[in-house]
C-alpha cells in the first residue's frame, strides 16, 4: 500500500516539534492513521521504503522506541540496521561527529538517533546527508513520542482542541513533556503541568501551559492525565526527598484520578515505575489507561515519519517521480 500524500512536507529532518506547523502535524497524523490500519492487517507490509536503508543509532538504552523504529522500518520494506552505543566505536573513544561521518559514508537514507545530550541530534544532522529523526535528545525533545500521544488521544478521546490535558511529574528533565507541550499547544489543547517546584523548569509558565504544584487543583476538569517517568536517580536526594513522598503527593492513584473529569484517560510514555509515579490499578485499568495503545500508535507514527522524510531525502527525487 502506498499512502496518498498531497501536501509536501517541507522538512528534511524531524528534530523536534518546534519548527513544525499545524498542517505538518495533521498530515503526519493522517498518514499514521492509514498505517494503523495496515498494522492491524494479517500481512503488515508495504514497500514504500523498498531498497532504502534505515540506521538506528542509540546512544542511550531504549526498548520500546528502538524496537518501534525497527518494526516501523521493516513494515515499510526498508533495510534496518540498529547500533547501540555499548557496542559501537564510541566506546573506543571516537567522537560523536566522527561516528556520524563514518556512518554517513555508508549512505543510509534515514538516520534515527537517540542521545543523552540535549542538542546532540541537531549537531549530527548538520554533518550527514540523510534524513535525521530525533528519537530523544537529553532533556530537549522527543517528537515521535508527542506525535504518537497526539494520535492516541485523537483516536480514543476526541478532537484535541477541545481537551484539557495535564502532564504530571518530572517536567524538568523530560523531553517528552517539552515535545508534548509544544505539540498539544499547536493542536489547540489546554495544557497543564503539575509537579513539585524542584521538578518544574524555570519559566515553565511561559511555555503555554498552566502550572500547578497540587494534583487536586491541577487535575480538576482534565480529560487526559499524562504521567511522566521519574528517573531513579532523581528520587532520592537533591530533587525530591524520597520515592514514597513523591508517590504520596504526585503518584497517580485512583483517588487523585478522581479529581479529573469522570472517565478521564491515563497515559504514560513508559517505562513505568509502578508505585512511584503511577499505581498499578490505574495503569492496568483497561477503561482508562491508554498506555498499551500508545505503544501501538508509536509504530504507526514512526512509519508515517519514515515514509514522509524518505520522500524528502536528497537522493530520493528520481524514485518519487
Amino acid at each position, binding site marked *: 500500500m502506498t499512502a496518498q500524500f498531497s501536501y509536501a512536507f517541507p522538512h528534511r529532518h524531524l528534530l523536534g516539534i518546534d519548527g513544525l506547523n499545524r498542517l505538518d502535524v495533521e498530515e503526519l497524523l493522517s498518514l499514521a492513521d492509514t498505517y494503523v490500519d495496515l498494522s492491524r492487517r494479517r500481512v503488515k507490509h508495504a514497500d514504500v521504503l523498498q531498497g532504502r536503508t534505515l540506521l538506528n543509532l542509540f546512544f542511550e538504552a531504549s526498548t520500546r522506541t528502538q524496537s518501534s523504529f525497527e518494526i516501523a522500518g521493516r513494515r515499510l520494506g526498508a533495510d534496518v540496521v540498529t547500533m547501540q552505543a555499548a557496542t559501537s566505536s564510541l566506546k573506543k573513544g571516537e567522537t560523536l561527529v566522527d561516528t556520524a561521518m563514518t556512518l554517513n559514508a555508508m549512505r543510509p537514507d534515514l538516520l534515527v538517533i537517540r542521545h543523552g545530550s540535549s542538542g546532540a541530534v541537531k549537531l549530527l544532522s548538520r554533518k550527514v546527508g540523510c534524513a535525521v529523526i530525533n528519537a530523544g535528545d537529553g532533556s530537549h525533545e522527543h517528537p515521535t513520542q508527542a506525535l504518537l500521544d497526539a494520535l492516541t488521544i485523537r483516536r480514543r478521546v476526541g478532537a484535541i482542541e477541545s481537551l484539557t490535558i495535564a502532564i504530571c511529574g518530572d517536567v524538568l528533565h523530560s523531553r517528552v513533556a517539552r515535545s508534548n507541550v509544544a505539540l498539544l499547544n499547536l493542536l489547540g489543547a489546554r495544557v497543564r503541568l503539575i509537579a*513539585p*517546584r*524542584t521538578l518544574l523548569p524555570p519559566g515553565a509558565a511561559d511555555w503555554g501551559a498552566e502550572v500547578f*504544584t*497540587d494534583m487536586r487543583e491541577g487535575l480538576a476538569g482534565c480529560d487526559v492525565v499524562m504521567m511522566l517517568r521519574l528517573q531513579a536517580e532523581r528520587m*532520592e*536526594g*537533591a*530533587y*525530591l*526527598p*524520597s520515592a*514514597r*513522598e513523591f508517590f*504520596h*503527593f504526585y503518584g497517580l492513584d485512583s483517588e487523585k484520578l478522581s479529581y479529573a473529569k469522570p472517565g478521564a484517560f491515563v497515559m504514560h510514555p513508559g517505562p513505568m515505575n509502578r508505585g512511584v509515579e503511577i499505581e498499578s490499578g490505574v495503569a492496568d485499568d483497561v477503561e482508562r489507561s491508554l498506555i498499551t495503545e500508545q505503544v501501538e500508535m508509536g509504530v504507526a507514527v514512526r512509519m508515517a515519519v519514515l515514509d514522509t522524510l524518505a520522500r524528502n531525502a536528497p537522493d530520493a527525487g528520481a524514485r518519487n517521480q
Partner: protein
Amino acid sequence: MSRSTLIWNARLVDPASGKDERGGLLVEDGAIADVGPHLASVRDGAADAIDAGRRVLAPGLVDLRVKTGEPGLEHKETLATASDAAAAGGVTSFVVMPDTSPVIDSVALVDFINRRARDHARVKVYPAGGLTVGLRGAQMSELGLMMEAGAVMFCNGDQAVEDAGLMRRAMQYASGFRALIASRADTHALTRGSVMNAGAFAARLGLRGAPPEAEWIAVERDLTLAETTGCRLLIDCLSTGRALAAVEAARARKVNAACTISAYSLFFNEFDVGDYLTYCKVFPPFRAEADRQEMIDGIARGAIDAVVSAHDPQPPEDKRLPIADASYGAVGLETLLSALLSLVSDERVTLVQALRPVTCGPADLLGLPQGRLKAGAPADLILFDPDTPWACRREDLRSRSKNSPFDGRLLQGRVLKTWVDGRIVHDAWQP
C-alpha cells in the same frame, strides 16, 4: 461541663491589638470568651473570679527555638522537664529543634514528639522537622509528609546548610507546600572552632573568634534564595545589626523573610564572656555592644519577628571544661521574659513592643491562634509583675541542665501564674 474563670482588675497587655489597658478577661472551656475594660471589676455570675491586683495579664509566650534531649539525650532535658521550665518562665508554646538522637527527620519522629508531648508536657510543644536527612546537609528529608504529620517548620538544627544548591532546591520544594524554612545564619568555614565573637577582646583572651561576616554572608545568601524561589524564610538567631538591615532590605523588596534573635543577645555582649565563662559560650556568640544596641532598636521598631529563648541544656560534663572544649548553648526558658523586661525597665522599649516578638509575632509565623488576648483564642495566659526583682540562681532553675549565663544576675519580672488552655500549669503567686 462549662467552667469559667474571670480574671479581673488586670493590666491587659495584648501586642496583637497593641492594647495596654486596665480590664478583665473571661475564660470559658479553655478559650478566651471575652476580654476588655468592661470586665475590669468583678460582677455576679457563675465565674470563679481572680483579682489580678493590677498585675500584667498577657498572652503566654511562644518560643520558636527550644532544644531538649528527647529522644536520645534525656540526661540533658526531657520534654517534661523542659515544659516545667517553660511553664515557670511563662512559655506556653514552644517549638522543639530536630537535633536529637535520632534526628527528627521523618514522620515517625514527628509523631513521637507529638505523642510524648501530649502525654508528658504541660505546655504546647510543636516539632520542627529536620530539613536534611540526619541534619547532614546532603539530602532533603521528607518535608511534605512531615508537614502532614504536624511539623510546623523545617530547619537544620544548629548546622547551616552549606550546599547552596541543596538549600535552593529545598526552598523550591518547600515553597510548593508554603512551608517555613528556618536557616541558621552561619558560614561554617569561617566559624569552625570559634568560642566567642571575633575581635580585639577575643584576641586578648587568646580565643578563636566567630567573625560577624560569617553571619552576613549566610544571611545574604539565603535571602537571595528566598527571593528567587519564593520560599518563606526565617533567619534563625541573627545577632548583628548588618544582618538585620539585610533582612529589612529584603522585606522591602517583598521577600517573604522573617528573623529571630535570642533573648541573651539582647542582654549580653562579648565582654560578658569575661573570665572564660563557659555558660557564655553560645552560638551565635554574644556580639559587640553596638550590635546589641541595634538589636534592641530592632525590637523597638518591630523589625524582629520573634525573640527566642534558644534554650539549649548542656550538663556540667559538657560545660565544666576549658572554654575551647566546652559545648555551645545556654538554657533560657525561665529567663526569656525577664531578659525582655529589662529592656522595658531601661525604657528602651514599651511592654507591648517587648512582648510582640514572644507572642503574636511567632504565633503568626506558624499560623497559630494563640499569642493574643482575643475572644475565641486559646486561653494561654500569663500573669506577672514586671517590677518584681529576683536573683537568678542556677540551682533554682527547673530545667534539668543549669547552664544559664544569667546565673547570679539580678533580674526583674517574674511569672506568677501560667495558664494553658485555661488550665493553671504554674502557680507561684502568694497574694
